[in-house]
């Protein structure tokens, strides 16, 4: 494998991590909004309890991804940056609204419901817009004007390709979040919330699968070069379908609260996306942005590559245990105990 391919692999991995963490994060925001009104149901507060400690870390992954693109593929950062001003700007505005209003919702009791709705809806739109970048990367939406590439916005947002990605993005997001939240409710010992999220996951996952299949079909019709490549990666997609079946069966069987099965469903679901994105990613090679921008041509110099890899690996080696630790601390069993804590001696000693 060439250095550029290693770089692309690393980037792909970061993208996958953010896609998973982000989906669950935004999806949890959506569910927190969905159940904001129903005081007797704990489903909303389970979603919030998941969100609170984790959104910041999720956000770090987004920035890490962006910075890694710049460091590893400056040529790609250059060309993508040149065309993505509007979609990128909109994503940033939504992301800001979403996060900040979520923070406000926790400080202001009075308008918490409105604030939660704002952050829920914007959270739904972010993955949708993020996935529209895939449509752009497949080519056909960038034209050359005065020798410069320009994004055809009107064309982009009237194309079925874009909309199929948007539908896929939204459905995947809330489905994945439902699966993960079902698992999390189970860990937290909340039977009602567990049943609610399991039900949602069961209802939504076939729809999400249909959306994925439809998306594949529409994309193949739109981008013949990709269709050919996708076909030769079919094994990955078959594997992904098998994982989907695995997650569905585990969900169906997880009637009572049995950690093993629901955890299995979560793992199957993540594996399903993992295999599908590998297949897709491989089919997309060697292009970042079809047909002008390839992985090799946009790669950085070898000096920078070496330094970036070293820093990234050291950083990730530190980051990962930290992340796991945070996860255990806040999302492990009984982490959410709402028992009033015993006032500490120290607090009262003066």
């Amino acid at each position: 494998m060439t250095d550029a391919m290693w770089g692309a692999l690393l980037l792909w991995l970061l993208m996958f991590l953010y896609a998973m963490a982000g989906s669950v994060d935004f999806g949890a925001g959506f569910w927190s909004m969905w159940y904001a009104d129903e005081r007797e149901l704990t489903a909303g507060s389970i979603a919030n309890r998941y969100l609170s400690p984790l959104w910041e870390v999720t956000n770090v992954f987004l920035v890490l991804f962006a910075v890694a693109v710049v460091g590893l593929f400056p040529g790609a950062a250059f060309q993508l940056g040149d065309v993505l001003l509007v979609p990128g700007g909109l994503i940033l505005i939504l992301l800001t609204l979403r996060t900040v209003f979520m923070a406000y919702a926790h400080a202001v009791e009075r308008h918490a419901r409105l604030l939660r709705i704002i952050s829920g809806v914007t959270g739904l739109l972010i993955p949708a817009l993020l996935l529209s970048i895939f449509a752009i990367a497949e080519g056909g939406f960038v034209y050359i004007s005065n020798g410069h590439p320009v994004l055809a916005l009107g064309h982009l947002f009237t194309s079925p390709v874009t909309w199929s990605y948007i539908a896929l993005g939204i459905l995947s997001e809330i489905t994945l979040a439902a699966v993960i939240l079902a698992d999390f409710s189970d860990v937290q010992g909340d039977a009602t919330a567990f049943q609610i999220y399991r039900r949602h996951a069961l209802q939504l996952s076939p729809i999400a699968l249909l959306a994925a299949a439809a998306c594949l079909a529409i994309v193949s019709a739109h981008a013949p070069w990709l269709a050919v490549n996708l076909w030769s990666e079919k094994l990955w997609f078959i594997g992904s379908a098998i994982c989907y079946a695995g997650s569905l069966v585990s969900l169906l069987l997880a009637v009572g609260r049995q950690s093993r099965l629901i955890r299995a469903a979560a793992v199957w679901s993540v594996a399903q996306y993992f295999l599908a994105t590998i297949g897709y990613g491989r089919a997309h090679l060697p292009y970042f942005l079809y047909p002008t921008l390839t992985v090799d041509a946009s790669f950085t110099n070898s000096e920078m590559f070496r330094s970036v890899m070293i820093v990234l690996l050291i950083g990730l080696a530190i980051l990962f245990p930290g992340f796991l630790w945070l996860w255990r601390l806040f999302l492990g069993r009984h982490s959410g105990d709402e028992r009033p804590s015993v006032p500490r001696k120290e607090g009262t000693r003066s």
Partner: protein
Amino acid sequence: MVDHVVLARALFGTTLGFHIIFATLGVGIPLMVLIAEVSYTLTNDHDYLIMARRWTKGFTVLLAVSITTGTTVALQLSLLWPRFMRIVGQVIALPFLIEIFAFFLEAVFMSIYVYAADRIPQRWRIFSVSLVALGAALSALLITDANAFMNTPQGFRFDHGRVTDVHPWQAVFNPALPTSDLHVLISAYMTVPFILATVAAYGLLRRVRSQRERQHQEKALMLCLSLGGLFGIMTAISGDASGKFLAKYQPLKLAAGEGLFHSMRHAPLVVGGWVDAAHQQTIWGIRIPSALSFLATDRWDGYVKGLDAFPRDEWPPLFVHDLFDAMVGCGSLLIVVALGAWLIKTLRRKTDQPFPTWLLWVFVLTGPLALVSIECGWCYGCISRQPWIIYGLMRTADAVTNAPHVGLMFGLFISLYALLGVATILVLVGYFRRHPLTQDIQEPNSGWKRTVWLP
């Protein structure tokens, strides 16, 4: 095309100008919380614990704004200046990358400090809040390094638009790094105590309910003013070092900042006034003979390069002189205020209320003044680098995106920042109105965990 570049600059400058307010608070508040926690441990005085808690509460809301606007800055760099980022990626990607891990450090320990504050022993609280402060400081130092590189690029060769012979670590350790980093960090540490002094002074001005509450606010006020004054003096010293750095590496920037048209020995320092390019002189300013030579070179007869030593088309806009003076002016004023407060407090030790009302109003102004200093300082730093985005190598106009609709985005982002600015203030004011100080004083342990939301 001119309008296009101007709009892109306006959009980017606004985003950074907005981010920097929250970022500065994000660098300084953890240090203040740490100081309060340590003071509590040493003195056993409950007031310090309450300060730490209330500051942390405000911080959790501010942090959300600083993180999202920071994310916006990071991505807007690529969206607005793609040609610049192509060079950044090849030469100076490391600080951006390492910074992520500093953020991570901060995020993890912030969660622990906030969430587990009532369950972990005091020394672990101190430990985690120190790591929060460390993470915040590192992130500021690293991003400032990227800016330092733009002022003194090195570690690569650039010919005909191609980057060759790259040494990433040389680029990291560029000559502007020490002075820039020191000045940025210390000025953030100066700003935040003054902001908190503003809050405390305002608390004293409102019709005060109990003696106990007043004592608390006064203690907070004195702590903040003394720290602000201390860091203020250090800021001035490090600012002086920055000036000497400019004289050596970026004389054009210094000349513009000081409105010096002609290279000379015994260069005068002109305070204030308007730099008139047409008549090649600075009008209405106060002139202090030879002072600029002394500040820039440590010698009264030192030779200082003026604007005439550089081609006209490389001059930055000359109003930067007033930005520079505003920064220095506000900073000096703040040092005076802090020293004055200390003097009055010492002289009127016996009195019950040492500070008259008008003086409290002056203290209320200190925080905003410090922020003005920060804003003017950055705008001076960035605008007086114009027309270069990478000093001497790449012009801003050559770095800008080709994408249309920059104006539209500018409008949207301006509205966003206006909304966030107003909403954040309302949320903070509303929160502290519902959780008044009295409540914290009376029942120090209640409502701590629940009311704070994890960042």
